[in-house]
Every structure is written in C-alpha cells, then in structure tokens.
C-alpha cells in the first residue's frame, strides 16, 4: 500500500509512511480485540465461571477473590460472569443497529447520490430533520412514547444512524457518478439500477464497511448509555449498560462492577474506532 504513494520529498514521505504503519498496527490491535470480544460472546456459557443471574445473598458486594475474580454485585452475582454474558446483548444491539441502518441507509444514499435533483433534495431535508435533534434525544423521546427495552432502544438508535450512513454513501456515489466507467456503462445502454448496484456499489463497499465499523462503536456507546439511564435493556438481564446503571448506585461501597463495565465499554469502543479509522485510511488512499 504505502509503496505506491508517490514520494514528495524525503521527510514528508517518510513521516507519512510511519504514521500509516502505525495506523495499520492500531487497526490490527482493534481488530484483535473485537475478535476476542466476539469469541467471548459466542462461548459465554463455556467461559463464564457462574451463570449470569446466580444470586448469592451471603456474598454481596464482595471485592475480587479467587472464587470471584472481579468480585460480586449487590445481589451476590459474579461480576466477571455477567460481563462475559453481557457481551452478547451489548454486541448484538450495535450489530442490529448497523444492520438496519445499512439495509435502509445504503439504498437511500445510492438513490439520492445517483438520481440527484428533487429526490436528492427531499432526502437531504429528511436527514437534516433527523440530525437536527441533538444525538440521543430523539431516541430518548421515542423510548418515552413506546416503552423502555432492547427492541425500542435498538430501533430508536437505528433511525439516527440511517441518515448518517446515507450521507456518507451519497457523497461517495457523487464522486463515482462522474467517472469514466459510469459513462461507459451509460453508453452501453445499461439501466440505472444495473449501473448503481452492479458497478458503483462494489466500488464504495470499502467506504461503507469503514463507516459501519465506526458506527458500531458509537452505537454500542449509545445503547449502553440508554441502558445506563434505565431506558434501554432492563435489569436483571446481563448487559454492560445495565451493569453501569446498577453498579453506579454502589460506587462508594464497591466500585468493582461499575469500573469493570466502564473499562470494558471503553476498550470495546476504542477497538472499533481503531479498526474503523484504519479501514477508512486504507481505502481512502487507494
């Protein structure tokens, strides 16, 4: 990759090359962390030392010990086990958000970018409206209208990620639209749908993947934030946001749960950011 970058004076060239390698390494680090998290989520029943909801009233709010490596929460549940089982919903939520927003946002972005004109303008106004709310607030209002829970939270967050992704796709399509290969397709008499899905979409897939990876991290934060406010996944389900919410009440007595959940969420989000940045960097230069 880096070798094809034309050299523009020794120092500038070398400096860019170094930062590129660093970005690639941090992307690998992020990817490895994500892989570990996925394995943990899938193999949760094998890895967790206790069931996530095994209550032990004789062992509440205990510090780390050999029996409970990260201690226990206010109901005597093993924090490590809840963290491991929590990975399932905490990763499934953002996965659904990214899936829904991709399924809706990519076609809308392709349509607006390729068709242009009135269609593009109307879509743009709708995005402006959805993004005119401060982030999370529309989701909070939606939770108020429906009822708090995993499904409401996922749908409410997904609605906000549709315009975000659609805009990225739209600008990528506008760049591609004026390139020679699109003209060549037109000359050969291909239909617009064939040009867009068969020729333009494959070119911008890397851009979509990079943006979706970044969005995964942000959606994870948003969903954990909603659960933390008591507006997302509800207790006693094992979920990182729920652990934050429950652990916060005992931060003075036993900070283990809230610290473990905070650090896990922070590490997961940084991992998705590193990978997303590396992917964006890699494909923007090619």
């Amino acid at each position, binding site marked *: 990759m880096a070798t094809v970058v034309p050299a523009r004076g020794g120092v500038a060239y070398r400096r860019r090359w170094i930062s590129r390698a660093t970005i690639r390494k941090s992307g690998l680090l992020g990817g490895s962390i994500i892989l570990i998290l996925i394995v943990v989520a899938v193999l949760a029943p094998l890895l967790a030392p206790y069931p996530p909801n095994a209550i032990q009233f004789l062992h509440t709010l205990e510090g780390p010990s050999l029996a409970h490596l990260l201690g226990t929460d206010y109901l005597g549940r093993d924090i490590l086990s809840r963290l491991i089982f929590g990975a399932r919903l905490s990763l499934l939520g953002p996965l659904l958000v990214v899936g829904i927003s991709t399924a809706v946002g990519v076609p809308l972005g392709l349509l607006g970018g390729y068709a242009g004109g009135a269609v593009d303008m109307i879509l743009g106004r709708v995005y402006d409206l959805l993004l*005119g709310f*401060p982030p999370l607030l*529309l989701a*909070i209002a939606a939770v108020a*209208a429906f009822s708090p829970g995993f499904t409401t939270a996922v749908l409410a967050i997904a609605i906000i990620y549709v315009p975000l992704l659609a805009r990225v796709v739209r600008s990528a399509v506008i760049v591609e639209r004026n390139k020679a290969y699109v003209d060549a397709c037109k000359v050969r008499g291909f239909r617009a749908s064939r040009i867009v899905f068969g020729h333009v979409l494959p070119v911008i897939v890397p851009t979509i993947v990079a943006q979706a990876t970044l969005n995964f991290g942000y959606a994870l934060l948003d969903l954990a934030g909603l659960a933390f406010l008591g507006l997302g996944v509800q207790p006693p389900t094992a979920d990182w946001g729920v652990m934050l919410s429950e652990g916060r009440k005992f*931060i003075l007595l036993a900070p283990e749960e809230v610290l473990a959940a905070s650090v896990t969420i922070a590490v997961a989000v940084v991992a998705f950011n590193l990978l997303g940045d590396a992917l964006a960097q890699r494909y923007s230069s090619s």
Partner: protein
Amino acid sequence: MLASAMLLLASSFVVFSLIAIAPGSPLQVLLGGRKVDRATALILEHRYHFDKPFLVQYGYWLRNVVHGNLGDSIAYRDTVASVIKSRVAPTLELGLYATVLVLVIGLTLGVIAAIRRGRRTDAVASFAMLIASSISPYVSGILLIWFFAVELRWFPVFSLGTGVSGRVYHLTLPAIALALGLTALLGRVTRASLSQALGEDYVQTARSRGFRERRVIFKHAFRSAFIPVLTITGVIAGYLISGAVLVEYTFGLNGLGSLLVDSVQSRDFAVVQAIVLIFTAVFLVINLVVDLLYVVIDPRTRLAEEGS
C-alpha cells in the same frame, strides 16, 4: 435563518407526532398509564383538543408552546413551564463550564500539536486525544467519580454546592466528564486543519516576508484552518447537550437532563416533549450562529450567497 426556523417547526412536529405514533390513545400516552374516571378523561380530551383532527391538535399545541404554555406535568401536578424553570440553572452552568473547557483546552492542544507536528509532544497529545475522543461522558464521569471523589476524596460525589465558588467546585468533575471527549475531538480537528494550512504556499509566503511565527500562525494559517473547526463546533454543541443528560444523571445533578430521564421513567410525556423541544431549539440556534460565523470568517461564502 428561514431554513433554521423551518427545521425547528418540523422538529416540533416530530416531537408532537410521537404522541400519535405511540401505542394507546394520545390521552393514555399523556397520562402515562395513570387511571382517571370518565368525566376527567372527557375534560382532559377537550382541554388538549384530542377530539379534533390531528393537524388541528398540533396547531393548538404549537400555539400554546409559542405562548410559553408547555402543558401540565402529571408527575409533578404543576405546569411544565414551572417544573422546568427550577431546573434550568444547573444545566446552563454545567454547559457553559464545559464549553469553556472544550474551547480553551481543545484549541490550545490542537494548536500545540500542529506546531510541534511529528515531534514527541504531538505524538503524546495525538494519542491521548485519540483515546479520549472515544470515551463517552458517562464512562469518563464514572471513572472521575471513582478516582477523584471516592479514592482521593478531592471532590464531593453527588451534590451541587452553594455560593459561586462552591458551585464551580462542585461542577468541576461533571464539567470535565462532559468536556473530555469533546475537547479531544476539537483538538484533533484543529490539529489536522491547522497543520494542513501550515503547509500551504501562502503561509510560506508570509514566513518569507519575515512575519513573526506567531503572526503567521494566528493571522494567516488559522483563518483558513478555522472553517473545519467551526463545523465541528456545531457538531460538538449537539454532543454537549446529549452529554449533559448523561452527566447530570451520572452525578445526580438536578438539571433539565436528569429531569428528562426521570420524566421518561415516570412516563410524564408533556415534560419529555418540552425538554426535547427546548434542547433541539438551543441546538438549532447554535448551528444558526455557526452558519453566520462562516460568513464572517470566510468572505467566499458571502459572495456565494449574494450570487445565488
């Protein structure tokens, strides 16, 4: 100006429409599942015009909102306006405190990193900003409470304090929690755009004319570097608002944000509508100011607007 007004009108319609999309009748949504007898229900239905068509309902509601009548809070048995009024101050103070931190520290870090580009100062600052910009205010809030309030006992855990100095002291941890990620975001954007501007030909020209480095950076390079910084400021405003909701809840501050969360939990829908509307209006006004500042800073946008 007109576009912002239209956008605000459209968002008010979305906020109002939620009551119609929500499961159950509008009255049930407004009452949040509380039971009332038939006569009261009829009175309320008439008062809120639920017996009229949807758009007429919206018209009445909008007229009331414009007149400062935001409806009644079911949980507090008071008007929404007076419930909200008592909660504005902490949110405003927290927001201003955090804004000052974001602007002062974010711009400073970004400028330093850009000037020292490629050196160790830049590497350390950039890495710290990369990590910090991935951290959400509730995570940083919890970590700050644990470290500075529980372990070190430098700051109080959950309270607002009295007097000006007490207020500043008590709001310090929440403001840092709110500002941390956004400071890093502003710093990263400032670094990127300023270091790009510093490589441009006109900056070299200014240097070769013998202007002092300070003047080159702040007068010549910063002017064009400021456009992306301004753009991200509009984005940051939104995160400050939604971050304030999370931070107030984390630190137990009695502001508008924690009132919003309480109201969603107690299904006090009129209060939720009002707070979402206020926050959205503030967000749109800030973005309007940002749009106006573009014109002040970049004469090209002025010409473009006159041309169209």
